[in-house]
């Protein structure tokens, strides 16, 4: 296992890449970037603004320690990605590797079949897994999609756009942004704050759509379902 230390200007963007090896990224109080792994290839690009790190072939793990608040993009095929600490703008894409993020300013997390988990995202959070579970703690504006997996968001503090084919969607919204839900046959459960009076636009071909909140103008809730049930309820 080799290690490389990069002394870099502040606000460098990291672009990490691995095929099947695990990728661990730790954001912590430091000024440099330390990468550990086998056969690491690196390149400083964009006039010093970007550091690209690629782990060698095979399933060897890659560990990167970077300054807190760093912007990071990670791409793997089957390797899982774990990001610990507080990041800036992040983007993680995998085919079958699970994605786990502790905290970020903005996030775009997508995978074909694995799970996506994020603790906190202060800004817009995009999450997409075809068949895996999508789970988020507290997020700003959220956009989430799944085919057969499930989506669960504990706290949405902005707008919410969620889409599923057969998967369930469960989200608690703060009533601070428009909510748009689309599902073919999934079960959708949206919670709004007590006293929130949403303006609703529901369309359903055969599914049941129910809003237990009094109609008003506080927040727009749009929902469309083919056969899935959609419930909007006060928290």
């Amino acid at each position, binding site marked *: 296992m080799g290690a490389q230390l990069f002394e870099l200007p502040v606000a460098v963007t990291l672009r990490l890449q691995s095929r099947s090896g695990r990728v661990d990224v730790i954001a912590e109080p430091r000024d440099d970037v330390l990468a550990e792994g086998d056969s690491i290839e690196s390149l400083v690009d964009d006039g010093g603004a970007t550091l690209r790190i690629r782990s060698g072939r095979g399933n060897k793990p890659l560990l990167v320690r970077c300054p807190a608040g760093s912007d990071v993009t990670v791409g793997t095929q089957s390797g899982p990605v774990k990001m610990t600490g507080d990041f800036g703008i992040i983007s993680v*894409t995998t085919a079958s590797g699970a994605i786990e993020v502790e905290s970020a300013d903005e996030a*775009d997390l997508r995978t074909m079949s694995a799970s996506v988990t994020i603790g906190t995202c202060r800004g817009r959070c995009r999450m997409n897994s075809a068949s895996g579970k999508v789970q988020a703690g507290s997020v700003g504006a959220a956009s989430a999609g799944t085919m057969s997996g499930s989506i669960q968001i504990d706290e949405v503090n902005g707008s919410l756009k969620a889409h599923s084919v057969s998967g369930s969607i469960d989200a608690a919204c703060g009533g601070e942004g428009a909510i748009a839900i689309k599902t073919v046959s999934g079960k959708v459960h949206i919670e709004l704050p007590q006293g929130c009076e949403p303006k609703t636009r529901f369309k359903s071909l055969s599914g049941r759509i129910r809003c237990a909140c009094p109609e008003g103008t506080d927040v727009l809730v749009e929902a469309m379902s083919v056969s899935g049930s959609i419930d909007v309820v006060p928290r």
Partner: protein
Amino acid sequence: MIAPAPVQPDVVEGTVMFTDIVGFTEFNALRGDSEAMALLTLQDRIVREEIGRDGRIVKDLGDGLMLWFDDACAAIRIGLRLQERFEEESMKVDAPLWVRIGVHAGKQRRRGDDLLGHDVNVASRIMNLANTGEVLASEETVRRAAALLPDVEFKQLGPVVMKGIPTPINLYRVERHAAA
């Protein structure tokens, strides 16, 4: 004497787009063949209206289409326009025309009216990573189109390692500028 028809080159250079109706199989199972056919017809009509002479439908893939454009700008512009039309029509007729789109510029090998090759496969893989309502494009597409599309924003998703594709592809999420 009639001049021989010009020989069509075997390899063409252009931009391939894949569209896919998300949840089509489930919709078909729930609502039956007639409504499923109507959904496909709706997608087909919108695509034909929007591509005009800028591109062509290479083939019908069941719940999606493969399109080809000789110009990457046209592919991006039309991809965004298609998503807007799909959304409008979906709301208008209460049909789940929820589509994802992947775009990749490169070289394609002609086989009759069909197009084959690595760059076609890459476009298909890109589409698989798109969310409903999204247009995703490869770096090569963005390189050819970005400077000519000031009203379009390309947000980098980073290096994406795709199954069966040896080299990671830098992907971008394509959106209209908020102010546009």
